[in-house]
């Protein structure tokens, strides 16, 4: 691995950067650790090699010491034997016994320790010589104990001489061994020094390699993680401040992923910001462009912070002139002291406040404004200001005022008209009351009158009653026209209406020699109308038939349903109406000259009154020629009602 990272080729850096953080972390921790372990192993091996070399040195010293010991023991034993021979005192034999006791063990130790071949050859000589010396000494002692001593001095002399010669040979061998071992010691010491030097070098190298490896790990950590994390943090900071991000290498490890996520987030934020800005811009343009509404914003204290075209148009101030001014200057003096603050506190309390009233333009002129103030709060609920929408309602206000005046005038006119009708009714009826009343008084005394007087009284009564019905119908028409018809609309059964009309009209028709033919209505069929007035219209038309169609035989009352309406037809067999006169049929007082010719009675108001009544009930009235050409058809329609269960 150290080989791999040692060559800083960009591709390798790239591969390194692409590794997951786990691998990077492993490498950064394992690299110095491996180097440390190898260095420790080397040191261990070195220390073991040194120990082995030192053991060899110690062994050489032991061999020297032991060979020296062998020589010393034998020399002292020989000295002791010599002393015993001279003195015959047993205490001189102590070194001899000591040598006899220790020599075998010492020789055995040497036998184990000696490894070098030359030394072993010498050692075998030493063993041999040691044996000769010990047996020589032993023979000397035996002879001394057997003989009387100086009798065999010559033989003793010879034995001592030979022993000495053996000891000298032994000394020579031992010196050789000592020399050989000394040489060996030098060699081994040299080896220990070599081993030490080698392992010192190895330790130094491994220390250097470990240092380099650590530095490399730090470098890798720095390039692979720390620096990139720092750059990433910088990008995060830029993102926080809404700045554009720095380009970041597209690596596949976690940091790379994080970086690309950050970039995507930044792009998303930018796109949103852009969209928001565009939306706000559009919104601002729309608001600024609105001309019919004055839209402007106030800060929480009521100072103007924005101003649109509509506000400029309605109030007259240009944005430059009014921004930063307090909005109370839009209010006339009489409301300026309390209304502005009142509206703002109402809006702050309820979220929104509406007001209508006079406001001032820049030129001092007034306009009638409809104002809606909305409190603007941020997400934490803190009041940020107000939005104010003002509409110029002056035209509407003027129209309303005009309408109010017109309505009051209309009510007054209607009242005046009712008052007039009431008074007219009174003024006309009061004299009629006297005329008819006194005529009736006279009538009561008819028996005492002459025929002429009696006829005169009857004429007064007849003309008076006619005049009275004229007055009634005239007032009726007038009151309908004044809107005072007082209609009670309800669903009324056709059957009921027909029954009542027949009961009321039959006697009159019979008197005129006519027969009433009714078309039976469908049970349950009804019209939405005023019952009394409907019957009044029906009777009117039937009475007309009785008056004008006396040359016929029957009068028909028919009906049919059409388009959610019910159409009634009153058909007679009389002379009908001339085409030229049809348009005047429903005109008041136009009796088409019939009265004079035929002597029919009537006010000339019946059809006019019927027309107004039918129209007041939402229907129509008209005249049609019969297909046969003879007779008249008067028709009227009324809105159909909901079906009645009564039938």
């Amino acid at each position: 691995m150290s080989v791999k990272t040692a060559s800083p080729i960009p591709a390798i850096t790239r591969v390194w950067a692409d590794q997951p953080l786990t691998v990077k972390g492993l490498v950064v921790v394992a690299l110095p650790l491996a180097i440390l372990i190898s260095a420790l192993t080397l040191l261990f091996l070195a220390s073991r090699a040194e120990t082995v070399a030192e053991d060899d040195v110690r062994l050489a010293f032991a061999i020297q010491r032991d060979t020296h010991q062998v020589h010393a023991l034998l020399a002292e034993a020989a000295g002791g034997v010599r002393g015993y021979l001279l003195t015959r005192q047993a205490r001189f034999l102590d070194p001899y016994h000591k040598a006899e006791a220790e020599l075998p063990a010492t020789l055995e130790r040497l036998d184990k320790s000696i490894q070098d071949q030359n030394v072993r050859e010498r050692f075998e000589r030493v063993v041999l010589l040691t044996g000769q010396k010990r047996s020589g000494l032993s023979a000397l002692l035996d002879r001394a104990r057997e003989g009387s001593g100086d009798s065999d001095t010559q033989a003793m002399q010879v034995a001592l001489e030979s022993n000495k010669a053996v000891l000298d040979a032994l000394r020579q061998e031992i010196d050789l061994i000592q020399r050989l071992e000394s040489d060996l010691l030098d060699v081994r010491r040299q080896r220990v020094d070599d081993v030490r030097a080698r392992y010192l070098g190895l330790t130094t190298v491994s220390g250097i390699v470990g240092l380099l490896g650590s530095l490399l790990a730090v470098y890798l950590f720095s390039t692979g993680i720390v620096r990139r994390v720092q750059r990433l943090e910088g990008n995060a900071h830029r993102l926080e401040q809404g700045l554009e991000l720095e380009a970041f290498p597209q690596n596949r490890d976690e940091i790379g992923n994080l970086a690309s996520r950050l970039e995507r987030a930044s792009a998303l934020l930018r796109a949103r910001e852009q969209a928001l800005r565009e939306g706000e811009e559009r919104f601002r343009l729309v608001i600024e462009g609105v001309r019919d509404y004055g839209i402007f914003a106030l800060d929480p204290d009521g100072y103007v912070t924005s101003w649109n075209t509509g506000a400029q148009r309605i109030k007259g101030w240009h944005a430059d002139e009014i921004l930063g001014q307090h909005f109370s200057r839009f209010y006339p003096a009489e409301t300026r002291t309390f209304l502005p603050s009142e509206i703002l506190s109402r809006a702050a309390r309820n979220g929104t406040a509406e007001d209508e009233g006079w406001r001032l333009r820049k030129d001092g002129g007034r306009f009638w404004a409809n104002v809606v103030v909305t409190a603007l709060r941020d997400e934490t609920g803190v009041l940020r200001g107000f939005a104010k929408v003002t509409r110029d309602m002056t035209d509407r206000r003027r129209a309303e005022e005009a309408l109010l005046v017109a309505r009051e005038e209309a009510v007054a006119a209607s009242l005046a008209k009712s008052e007039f009708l009431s008074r007219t009714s009174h003024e006309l009826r009061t004299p009629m009351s006297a005329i008819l009343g006194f005529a009736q008084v006279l009538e009561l005394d008819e028996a005492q009158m002459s025929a002429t007087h009696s006829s005169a009284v009857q004429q007064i009564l007849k003309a008076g009653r006619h005049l009275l019905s004229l007055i009634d119908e005239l007032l009726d028409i007038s009151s309908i026209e004044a809107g005072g018809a007082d209609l009670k609309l309800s669903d009324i059964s056709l059957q009921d209406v027909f029954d009542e009309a027949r009961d009321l009209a039959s006697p009159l028709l019979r008197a005129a020699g006519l027969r009433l033919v009714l078309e039976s209505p469908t049970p349950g069929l009804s019209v939405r109308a005023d019952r009394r007035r409907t019957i009044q219209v029906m009777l009117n038309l039937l009475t007309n038939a009785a008056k004008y169609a006396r040359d016929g035989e029957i009068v028909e009352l028919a009906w049919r349903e059409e388009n959610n309406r019910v159409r009634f037809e009153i058909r007679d067999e009389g002379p009908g109406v001339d085409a030229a006169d049809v348009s005047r049929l429903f005109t008041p007082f136009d009796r088409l000259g019939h009265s004079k010719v035929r002597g029919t009675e009537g006010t000339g108001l019946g059809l006019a009154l019927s027309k107004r009544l039918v129209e007041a009930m939402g229907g129509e009235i008209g005249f049609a020629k019969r297909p046969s050409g003879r007779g008249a058809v008067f028709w009227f329609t009324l809105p159909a009602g909901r079906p009645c269960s009564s039938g």
Partner: protein
Amino acid sequence: MTDFVATKDLLSRRILVIDDEEANVLLLQTLLEREGYQNTLCLTDPGEALEAFVRFDPHLVLLDLMMPGTDGYQLLEAFRRQGKPGAFRPVLVLTADTTVNARRRALALGARDFVGKPFDIVEIGLRIANLLEMQILYERLSGARI
């Protein structure tokens, strides 16, 4: 005159007529005389009506509504205030204003009956007699109870 009340009692009742129109007053006076009522007081000035009401203490008042100065409605209210509690003092309103409003207002103010002008004199005669008869019976009842 009726089954329950003696004609003498009926005809001795005091009747006050108030109408600014002289012809009408005359008509009513003629009517009352023909019927045989003996105690009638006729006024054409409504300003004198209240004083006459107190002084004359009529059993029945025939009252016109539309009059200059003090009109019939004001008089109706004044009569009601003057009337003794528990007393039955009917007012018959006779008016040429036959509108529904006039009728309702007069009846609400305490008029006992309402007849539009022009009227049938026979009918008026009967209505007057009815009211007085009812009054006499009422008095008998309350007297008996006391």
